């Protein structure tokens, strides 16, 4: 026997639809799991229980149905309950009841909201029901939940949905309009048609719909695994003060979690370490991983490196590690491309480099969308994707390109700059507006420079003056006119966040203040080739870059 519970979704109190449906599904799942361990969440707001053997605990089928309906109502979910010998019949009757409750043609507390179909009478019980229920149930079985109720059913994987669709043959769209033209209104009318003729006209899906209308099951009940938190805790008898002994405890905590991930074919993309300190405070560190991982040694190393970079302020009493499980990573390596480091290796390497070089100092360079000289951003380094590998395997070798193209590329590649993030100031002597001598004002950073042998320029570059928050130039005391006409000094502008790169994964320490520079490329007598920049507002010269 199967017991189906269907929530009357539109009868729920006004809430955001997604939260509404999720809460109703969770409530029904809780009611179902209170009755039986074999529970399948069919879709949003629809649950089926394997009701065999419940009579010894809860009484006859009618009592079980009434109990489930009452418990669902106690949780604030008006629902219809149906018990039948087949899963399909129970679902169709329950869906019909839920639709009637939603349309206010059935009182959720009335006996009609908890129906028991005797064994062998499924076809008769289904006969008067509207044929549109087939479309509703087919959508649930194929994983196509109603769009207005949040899409995919919870707790089912794509693989199980595909399997269900393949078994039942219900993945095709239900031809309700065609059936209406045929004059079919009820499930009984569809069940009365010859199966062979239906197969000739609608294919294998037609047979599936025909069986559904007669209350026959296309597949057995597949219990939905109850989500279990991937969390482990270790309480220490004595507080741990150092990271090294904590690493041993981490190993004991992480390894069982990783074994569970391995069994489920899962990986984690987030590591959360919660430390309860001797000061009764909670110290939480959260790490995002570039790919799903489940190697305990890698995960432990990442946590240890993170805690070494950000040590807790006091001794540790309790350690808790929480994973956020997702589907495992499936990789097909190429036999033709060079082997690249695994994501685990790259994650560990970048964590180690961060511990050495500092936070925000390791990643992948990004050219920002601005004309400001030397502006640069960073984003996390993720190595190469599988798609990248295949694309690279088809790229022709560089040496096969024509010689003329190669020469041109080589010449263009030779102008490479070494940027000064804090440009050293210089004194520049001018002759008719052109630099003739450059003197270093920071001899430790720039050696003797001397007379200018060759120069080219100036090239003017300005920008970000239009941006709100960068109204004045950095270092200036901007003036504004007050109501009585007197000049009023404005506050010194503060650098705002970099806004040139819309990608949220990119970070940059470049200020978005306005700039207005004249740039010169010069070669001085010492042999150095420099890119000089003159701030036009402050008439100040700096060496923006060394041409090398």
């Amino acid at each position, binding site marked *: 026997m199967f017991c189906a519970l269907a929530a009357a979704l539109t009868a729920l109190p006004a809430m955001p639809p997604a939260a509404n449906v999720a809460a109703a599904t969770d409530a029904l799942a809780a009611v179902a799991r209170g009755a039986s361990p074999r529970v399948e969440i069919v879709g949003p707001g629809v649950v089926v229980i394997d009701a065999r053997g419940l009579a010894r605990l809860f009484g006859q089928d009618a009592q079980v149905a009434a109990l489930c309906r009452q418990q669902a109502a106690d949780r604030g979910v008006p629902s219809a309950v149906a018990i039948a010998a087949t899963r399909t019949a129970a679902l169709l009757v329950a869906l019909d009841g839920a639709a009637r409750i939603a349309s206010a043609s059935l009182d959720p507390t009335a006996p009609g909201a908890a129906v028991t179909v005797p064994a062998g009478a499924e076809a008769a019980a289904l006969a008067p029901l509207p044929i549109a229920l087939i479309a509703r149930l087919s959508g649930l079985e194929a994983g196509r939940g109603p769009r207005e109720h949040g899409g995919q059913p919870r707790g089912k994987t794509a693989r199980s949905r595909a399997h269900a669709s393949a078994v039942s043959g219900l993945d095709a769209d239900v031809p309700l309009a065609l059936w209406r033209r045929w004059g079919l209104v009820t499930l009984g009318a569809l069940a009365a048609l010859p199966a062979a003729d239906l197969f000739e006209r609608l294919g294998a899906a037609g047979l599936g719909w025909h069986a559904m209308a007669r209350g026959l099951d296309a597949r057995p009940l597949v219990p939905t695994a109850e989500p279990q938190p991937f969390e482990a805790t270790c309480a220490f008898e004595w507080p741990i003060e150092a990271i090294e002994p904590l690493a041993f405890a981490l190993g004991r905590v992480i390894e069982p979690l990783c074994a569970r991930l391995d069994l489920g074919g899962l990986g984690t993309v987030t590591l959360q370490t919660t430390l309860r300190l001797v000061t009764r405070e909670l110290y939480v560190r959260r790490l995002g991983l570039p790919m799903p991982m489940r190697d305990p040694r890698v995960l432990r190393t990442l946590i240890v490196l993170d805690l070494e970079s950000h040590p807790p302020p006091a001794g540790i009493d309790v350690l808790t590690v929480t994973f956020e499980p997702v589907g495992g990573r499936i990789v097909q390596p190429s036999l033709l491309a060079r082997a690249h*480091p695994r994501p685990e290796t790259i994650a560990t390497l970048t964590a180690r*480099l961060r511990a050495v070089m500092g936070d925000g100092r390791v990643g992948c*360079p990004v*050219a920002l969308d601005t004309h400001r000289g*030397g502006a640069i951003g960073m984003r996390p380094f993720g190595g190469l994707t599988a798609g990248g590998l295949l694309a690279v395997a088809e790229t022709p070798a560089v040496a096969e390109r024509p010689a003329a193209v190669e020469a041109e590329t080589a010449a263009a*590649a*030779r102008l490479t700059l070494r940027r000064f993030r804090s440009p050293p100031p210089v004194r520049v002597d001018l002759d008719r507006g052109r630099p003739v001598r450059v003197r270093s004002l920071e001899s430790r950073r720039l050696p003797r420079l001397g007379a200018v042998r060759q120069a080219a320029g100036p090239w003017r570059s300005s920008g970000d003056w239009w941006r709100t928050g960068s109204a004045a130039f950095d270092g200036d005391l901007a003036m504004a006119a007050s109501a009585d006409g007197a000049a009023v000094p404005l506050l010194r502008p503060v650098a705002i966040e970099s806004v040139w790169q819309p990608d949220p994964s990119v970070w940059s320490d470049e200020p978005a203040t306005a700039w207005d520079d004249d740039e010169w490329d010069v070669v001085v007598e010492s042999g150095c080739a420099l890119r000089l920049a003159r701030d036009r507002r402050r008439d100040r010269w700096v060496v923006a870059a060394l041409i*090398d």
Partner: protein
Amino acid sequence: MQAARLHIEALLRARRLDRTVTDACAPPEPVRSVPTGLPWLDPRLAGGWPCGETSEIVGPASSGRTSLMTASLAAATARGDLAALIDTHDTFDADSAQAAGLTLDHLLWARGDPAGVPRPHVLLERAIKAFGLVLEAGGFAVVALDLGDVSSSDLARLPFTTWRRLQRFVEGRDTVALVLAPTPVARSARGVTLELSASTATAVWVGESRRARRLAGLSLSAHVRTARRL
């Protein structure tokens, strides 16, 4: 006498020190090379930078050393390989590197923090430690360490075992360890040292008129130093 010599050679071979002493006796192993990215330079290096060795680019400022390093990184990323740059003084310029053909997505960039570290030798130690970590991890075709702004005196203070230890990380791998420095410090026994020189004639100018004149690049003049037969 012969037995004693063979015994000494066996001991050197066991400790992997035979390459520097007994090259004349042992047959040389073939060395796989990686292109430098500059076609005119590769024939002079017998195909490019030797894999599994530490090579270096040496020269003063504006001698084209950064261009050469960037070209080597760009050639690696153009082949679809990963490259890494340990940027000791945070001088990397993304625009010019991209113009040189470097695929930024394939580059792991570890940048020093000269403003946040008061003493230069701390900056240098961190960079060398990061260099060792990347070499030890493996999987990168070219790993470059930019010491171009480190003074020769700071480099001279490093223990001589530093470079030997780093060389052990890269030995036997398909990785080129590349060091850019003002003076020769790091070349391994079968690596290459490219000495570049700078002068006012190094700059290449284009444009006839004064207004149209611009600096197009630097012409490289390289002197190759290596212990291996090219």
